[in-house]
């Protein structure tokens, strides 16, 4: 009986340790299948940041946002990370930094296409920035 208890405790301890290591090392996950906190147009999100950045930060910072909008521009940076710029105003817009799935999607996208993109809102510099983005609908 005592042996059984020791064995059970040991197994429980090992299981908890494995779970803890698994949890600590979880990679940043793709947002595929995750329900967005907000869904709006890219121009509307950009407009909110232009109108009142502090208030937009409070509402959207770190939140999952699904944007619909026209592609103003797209391209890859020096590291091969793809990004889509969705319409905002005449000059700037929403810079959506695509996750690793971006390479498969972007060859099909052209300027002027209407797309749906989901990502995490990081705030605004010139453009509003979304990271870990996936294209929901090309």
């Amino acid at each position, binding site marked *: 009986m005592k042996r059984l208890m020791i064995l059970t405790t040991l197994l429980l301890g090992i299981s908890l340790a494995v779970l803890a290591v698994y*949890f*600590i*090392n*979880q*990679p*940043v*996950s793709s947002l595929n299948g995750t329900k967005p906190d907000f869904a709006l147009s890219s121009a509307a999100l950009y407009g909110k940041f232009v109108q009142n950045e502090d208030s937009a*930060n*409070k509402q959207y*910072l*770190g939140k999952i946002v699904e944007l619909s909008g026209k592609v103003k521009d797209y391209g890859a*940076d*020096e*590291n091969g*990370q793809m*990004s889509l710029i969705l319409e905002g105003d*005449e*000059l*700037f817009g929403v*810079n959506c*930094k695509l996750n690793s799935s971006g390479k498969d999607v972007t060859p099909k996208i052209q300027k002027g296409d209407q797309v749906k993109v989901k990502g*995490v*809102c*990081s*705030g*605004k*510099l*010139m*453009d509003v*920035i979304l*990271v*870990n983005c996936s294209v929901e609908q090309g």
Partner: protein
Amino acid sequence: MQNKLFFVSALSLFFLMQGNVNGQSKYYDKNCDVSFYSHTPIEDIEAKNTSAVSVLDVESGALEFAVLIKAFEFQKSLMQEHFNENYMESEKFPKATFKGQVTNISSVKMTTDGNYPIEITGTLTMHGVSKEISTTGTIKVSGGNIGGRSEFLVKPEDFNIAIPSVVKEKIEKELKVTVEANYSAYTN
């Protein structure tokens, strides 16, 4: 043309709001890479941000950067969460900025290809704390393109970033920050 003028005005306004960049001959990059790295025997920590904004005035040497803290991406989800919530408090302090000067900009020949060593001084502001820093870097002129690169060390404690004792062994006392920009010219 009208669009271009408006763009230049908006860009200048953006940096005037952040601080001040004087003069002509400004170059900008709105997709700069900023990364930081920490190595300890227990764990390596690396985060990348590819959406920082920078303006370099090649005449006066004025140099500015702005970066969104929430746009740093980590390999591990829990690291990213701790970085934002516990250390950088990114909802309270969403941006970090650098405003400074390339002090030897006159030694960089913008019309001659080459790698030019540069010296930089200025104010780094993050987590609500501003601190003067000095570092070195390189400006690469190649076929009319201008690139910049610099590395410097940052001590979290200098910016009131408290690292709990339980994870102190996992994080270096000074983190290596690397900044890379590929500038495009605009004129006003």
